[in-house]
C-alpha cells in the first residue's frame, strides 16, 4: 500500500522491541521466589478455575524444589499446550483470579509465568516426557492443527492410535500462529512448541485444506473436527469494499504471517468491543497508528477483559462508546468513518437522530466476531448444528458417530485452554469409542 496516509512497513529491529513480551520469561531467581510464596492449598481454587485442571500447587512446589522436569510433566499431563497457555491464558479471570491471596489483598501467585517457566525448561532441553502408546491399529484424522487438534492428536498418540492432522494453512498452530497477539506468543514460540509436541509421532500435513470429508472416511476410523471459526463477520454498511477496510482476524493473520512487517493507516478505527478488537487496536498502535475503538454499547457491556482494556489504554487507544458505524467514506481508499451515537434503553440500542459525526481515518478494522463454518459442517452427513456450532455429547462425539469435534467450532469461540481441554477429552472419548471391547 503506497498511500500517503499509510505508514511505511517497519524495520525488523524496531518492531521486535515494540512487540516485546507482556509476560516475559522468569529468571531462576524469580521462579524460586514466586513459587515459594504459593501456599500449596488443598483442593486449590486455582485448579478448579483452570479449564484443563492442571495440578497447579503441585507443579509450583516442584519448581520450588528445582524439580523443573517434574513440574513440566505435571503440567503437560493435563495440558500439552501448557507453554502457550502459560503465555496467552487470560489468567486474571482464570487460575490467578481464583488464588486465595486475593482474600488477603495480596498479589496472586503469577501462575501463568511459572507455568511458562517450567514448560520452557522441558521444551528448551527437549526432555521427552511421553511415549507413543502400544499401536492399536486404529487411525484417526484430525482436521485443523489448532490447539484443539494438536491436543487431541497428542493424547491419541499416547494411547497408541495413528494420527494425521490436515491443516489448511501454510503453518500449524491455528490461532496460536495466526491470531493470538504476538506480544503474548511469537511465531518462534509456536514453532518450537509444535515441534516439541509432534515429535512424539503424529503427522501434520499443512497446506491441506479438507473440502470433502468423504475422502477421509475410507482411510480413517474416526475423524476429529477442530476447525475453529471462519472469517470476520461483515457489518453490512456502505463502503465495506473500499481499500483499507479489513476484518480483524484477517488483519491479524496477515500481521502474524508477515512477522509483523505490515503497513497500517496513520489513523485507524476499530469497530467492536471484544478482545479481538483490543488486540487489533493495540497491534495497530504498536505499528505506529493513532487508534480509536468504537463500540455500540457502553463500557459496562464491553466483553473485552478489564486487563485488556487497560492494556489498550496504556497504548493510547481511544475508546468511543455508544457509537455505531453508518458508512465507510472514500473513493477507492478509505477516508473516514461516519458514525451515529446510541442510547441504551434497557439492553436495546436506539440510535440518536442527528448525532452523526465523521472520524477521519485511512483504515477501518471490523471486529464484530467471526463467522461459523456452517457450509463445511453441512457437507458432513448427519452432523447437527446449533447456531452454526457443532453439537457434541459428553464424549465430544457428534450426531454422526464417526465424527468428534472440539474447540472454537463447538463453543463459538473461547480461549486456547478451552480448546485444549476439548481436544484432550475428545481423544479420551474417541479411545473409548474405538477400543470398546479391547481396553479393560
Amino acid at each position, binding site marked *: 500500500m503506497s498511500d500517503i496516509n499509510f505508514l511505511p512497513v517497519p524495520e525488523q529491529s524496531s518492531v521486535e522491541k515494540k512487540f516485546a513480551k507482556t509476560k516475559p520469561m522468569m529468571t531462576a*531467581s524469580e521462579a524460586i521466589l514466586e513459587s515459594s510464596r504459593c501456599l500449596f492449598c488443598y483442593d486449590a481454587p486455582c485448579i478448579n478455575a483452570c479449564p484443563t485442571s492442571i495440578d497447579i500447587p*503441585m507443579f509450583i512446589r*516442584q519448581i*520450588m524444589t528445582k*524439580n523443573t522436569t517434574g513440574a513440566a510433566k505435571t503440567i503437560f499431563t493435563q495440558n500439552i499446550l501448557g507453554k502457550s497457555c502459560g503465555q496467552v491464558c487470560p489468567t486474571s479471570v482464570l487460575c490467578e483470579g481464583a488464588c486465595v491471596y486475593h482474600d488477603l489483598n495480596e498479589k496472586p501467585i503469577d501462575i501463568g509465568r511459572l507455568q511458562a517457566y517450567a514448560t520452557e525448561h522441558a521444551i528448551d532441553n527437549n526432555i521427552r516426557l511421553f511415549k507413543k502408546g502400544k499401536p492399536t491399529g486404529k487411525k484417526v484424522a484430525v482436521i485443523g492443527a489448532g490447539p484443539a487438534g494438536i491436543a487431541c492428536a497428542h493424547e491419541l498418540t499416547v494411547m497408541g492410535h495413528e494420527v494425521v492432522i490436515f491443516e489448511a494453512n501454510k503453518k500449524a498452530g491455528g490461532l496460536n500462529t495466526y491470531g493470538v497477539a504476538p506480544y503474548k506468543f511469537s511465531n518462534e514460540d509456536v514453532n518450537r512448541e509444535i515441534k516439541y509436541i509432534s515429535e512424539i509421532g503424529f503427522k501434520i500435513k499443512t497446506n491441506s485444506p479438507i473440502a470433502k470429508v468423504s475422502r477421509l472416511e475410507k482411510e480413517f476410523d474416526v475423524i476429529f473436527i477442530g476447525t475453529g471459526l471462519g472469517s470476520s463477520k461483515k457489518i453490512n454498511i456502505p463502503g465495506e469494499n473500499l481499500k483499507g477496510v479489513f476484518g480483524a482476524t484477517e488483519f491479524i493473520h496477515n500481521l502474524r504471517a508477515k512477522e509483523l512487517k505490515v503497513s497500517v493507516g496513520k489513523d485507524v478505527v476499530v469497530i467492536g468491543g471484544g478482545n479481538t478488537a483490543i488486540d487489533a487496536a493495540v497491534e495497530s498502535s504498536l505499528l505506529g497508528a493513532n487508534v480509536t475503538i468504537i463500540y455500540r454499547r457502553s463500557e459496562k457491556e464491553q466483553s473485552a477483559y478489564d486487563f485488556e482494556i487497560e492494556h489498550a489504554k496504556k497504548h493510547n487507544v481511544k475508546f468511543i462508546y455508544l457509537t455505531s458505524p453508518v458508512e465507510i467514506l472514500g473513493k477507492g481508499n478509505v477516508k473516514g468513518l461516519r458514525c451515529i451515537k446510541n442510547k441504551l434503553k434497557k439492553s436495546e440500542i436506539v440510535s440518536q437522530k442527528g448525532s452523526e459525526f465523521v472520524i477521519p481515518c485511512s483504515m477501518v478494522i471490523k471486529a464484530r466476531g467471526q463467522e461459523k463454518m456452517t457450509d463445511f459442517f453441512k457437507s458432513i452427513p448427519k452432523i447437527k448444528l446449533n447456531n452454526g456450532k457443532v453439537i457434541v455429547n459428553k464424549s465430544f462425539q457428534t450426531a454422526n458417530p464417526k465424527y468428534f469435534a472440539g474447540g472454537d467450532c463447538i463453543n463459538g469461540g473461547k480461549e486456547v485452554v478451552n480448546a485444549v481441554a476439548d481436544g484432550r477429552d475428545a481423544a479420551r472419548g474417541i479411545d473409548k469409542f474405538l477400543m470398546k471391547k479391547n481396553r479393560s
Partner: protein
Amino acid sequence: MANLETNFAGIKSPNPFWLASAPPTNTGYQVMNAFRAGWGGAVWKTLGVPIVNVSSRYSAISYKNNKLMGLNNIELITDRSLEVNLKEMKEVKEKFPNNALVASMMFEKKEEWHDCIKRCEDIGIDGFELNYGCPHGMCERGMGSAVGQNPDVCERITSWVTDVATKPVIVKLTPNVTDITKPALAAQRGGASAVSLINTINSVTGINLTTMEPNPTVAGQSTHGGYCGPAVKPIALNMLAELTNHPDFKLSISGIGGIETWQDAVEYFLMGAASVQVCTAVMHYGFRIVTDLSSGVNNYLDSNNMERVVDLRGIAAKKLKKWDQLDLNYKVIAHIDPEKCISCQLCYIACEDGAHQSIALLPNSRIPLIKEDTCVGCNLCSLVCPVENCISMVEVKNKKKKLVWANHPANPSCI
C-alpha cells in the same frame, strides 16, 4: 526411569518413602489413604498400653513467612487399644500387601513386648520399630528416651525383642544424647537389624507474651516437648553420618527428621540412609507431597545416570571428615556477578559488620566490590545474597600440595 523399589534390612517396599510413627499413622483410614497417594511404607503410631493425652498438644516455630519451620509436640504414644490398632493394621496389610507396614512399640515389661510381637506377626506385619525416643511423658515412666539414653537398657530390651521376633527389628534412636553411636552400637549388640533416627529433640518453642505461658498451653501450664520439622534436619544429618562412618556399625539406617522435599530425601540417602521417614511435612501438607518426593528422586537418579536409590547411599558421608583432615592450602574467594546483582548491599554489611571487612562500596555504583586480597572465602556473603547464583565462591588455584593441620607450621606440635 529409575527403579525406586527398596529392600530395607529385609523389609520390601515399592519406594523408600515411609511415614514415621506419628499422627499420620494413627489409623488404618490414614495409612490406606497414604498408600493410595504413593507412600511406600508406614510405621504405625507407637503401640503400647493406651495412654491419655492433653489438650492442646502442639506448638511451632514460624520463621518470617514460613509456618512450621519447627514443630513441637507433647503428645504420647497411641491412645487407642491394641485390639483396635491390630484390627486396622490387618486390614491395611490385606488391602496393600506390597507396601511395608511396620509396628512401632513401647512397653515396660518383657511379657508385654513378647505378647505384642506375637500378635503383630500373626496379622502379617513386615517388621518392628522399637520406640526408644519419646522425650516426654513416657521417659518419666522408664520408657522412650529413658531407654535410648542408657545403652545397657537399650541393649537388654532390644534383645528381649530379637529373641522372639521373626521379622526385622529397627531400633528408633533419640537424639537427646551426647554420642549417638553409643545407643546405636547397643542396638546392634542387642541383635537389631536396623536403626532409625532421629526421634524428636527436647524443646520449648516459645512463650506467649500476653499470658507469659510457655507454648503449648494446658490450662495455663506447659511442659517441654519434642522438636521436629525442617529445623532439625541438620542435627539428624550429622548423627546419620556419625553412624554411617563408624567402623563398627553395620546396620541399615532409616533417616528421619525434617524431610519435606525430594532434595531432603536425597541428602539422607547420600549420608547413608537406606529409607526415609516423614512426619511433620505430612502433618503440614498432607500425603500428596509424596508425588514430588518420587518424581524428584526419580529425575535426580536419571540425571545422574543412576538406576536405584542404593547407588546414592553414603556418597556424601565418605566426604565428611574430621576437621584435621581438611586441606589448609585450599582457597576460595567470593565473586559477584554484576549482571545478576540487584544492589541490595546485604553482602556488604554482612562482611563489614559480621565478618572480614572484605567488600567495598564504590562511589558511583551500588554493586559492591570484593576485596580479593583480604577475602578469606568464608561464604557469608553468598549465603545472605537474595539472588540465585549471584555470588559464587571461586577457587583460587595455587600449586601448593594438600596441607593438613598435623603438618601445618602454626601447629605447636608440628616439628
